[in-house]
């Protein structure tokens, strides 16, 4: 194992917080619906929406507190935000980030795959980005 100099926990928290705030600030100002962001390579190659498609537009809507619009772009990503925020806060406080039960990764896998399939089908247009 190569010995790497790992920054301190406080520095990691500060960097993660600054990156999050900075990314949200950029997203709040520059609307992804008007282009200018890199295109999702999965859509570019296949023409299908991947599970993460629409997240940038959803986050932009979220910074403008437009929840229905955010959910219309990527409902699954919006649903995971509370989980991520919960884990991030606990991690920043030095606690155990998330107690992962064995069913959690499986449930997430089923959710993500079925979400990816349904949002590309005609009757799943409500979930499409």
């Amino acid at each position, binding site marked *: *194992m*190569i010995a790497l100099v*790992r920054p*301190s*926990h406080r520095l*990691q928290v500060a960097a993660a917080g600054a990156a999050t705030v900075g990314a949200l600030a950029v997203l709040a100002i520059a609307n*992804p*619906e*008007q*282009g*200018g*962001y*890199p*295109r*999702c*390579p*999965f*859509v*570019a190659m296949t023409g299908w929406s*991947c*599970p*993460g*498609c*629409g*997240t*940038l*537009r959803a986050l932009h809507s979220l910074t403008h507190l437009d929840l229905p619009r955010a959910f219309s772009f*990527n409902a*699954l*990503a919006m649903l*995971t935000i509370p*989980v*991520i925020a919960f*884990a*991030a806060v606990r*991690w920043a406080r*030095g*606690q*155990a*980030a*998330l*107690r*992962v*039960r*064995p069913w*959690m*990764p*499986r449930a*997430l*896998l089923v959710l*993500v*795959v079925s979400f*990816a399939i349904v949002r590309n089908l005609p009757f799943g247009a409500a979930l499409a*980005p």
Partner: protein
Amino acid sequence: MTGYEPPAPPPEPDGPPPSWGPPPENAQPPAWGPPADVPPPAGPPYGGGHNQPPYGAPPGGYQGGPAYPPQYYAPQYMPPRPMGPQPPTYLVGAILSTLFCCLPAGIVSIVYAAQVSSKFSSGDYRGAQDASNKARTWMIVSIVAALVLSVLWVLLIAAGSGSSTGNEYQYP
């Protein structure tokens, strides 16, 4: 990253709870080696049977074998105990790389995250550690690929050959 990792002693059972997700302060994931604090099983060698006199038995006497199972036989017949906490699943990182990045390579990370807990609960600690390492690897692959593509995009824009026109509903 690869190569032999020296086995570290397992964390104290009464220590702080293990942290899942991105490791905050603890520098490296727990290693899975033979626990250093457990003495080697004492007693007669494996397969010795019950007819051998135990250590310390007076020579010539007590030929009937032990009347009750001696205590030092017990560790050989117990199921293997969990060696330390479950390795991290990197589940939050998998969510972030799958839903908040732009590549479906994060799905591979979720698959390995699911293998971590299932293998750990079935007693396959080495496999659980391998799955944990692969989950982290694929999470990093997904994020780095997205970063590289983003940087390439910015370079294309800077070179003037990038185009921001197109279907507006196909941006991530």
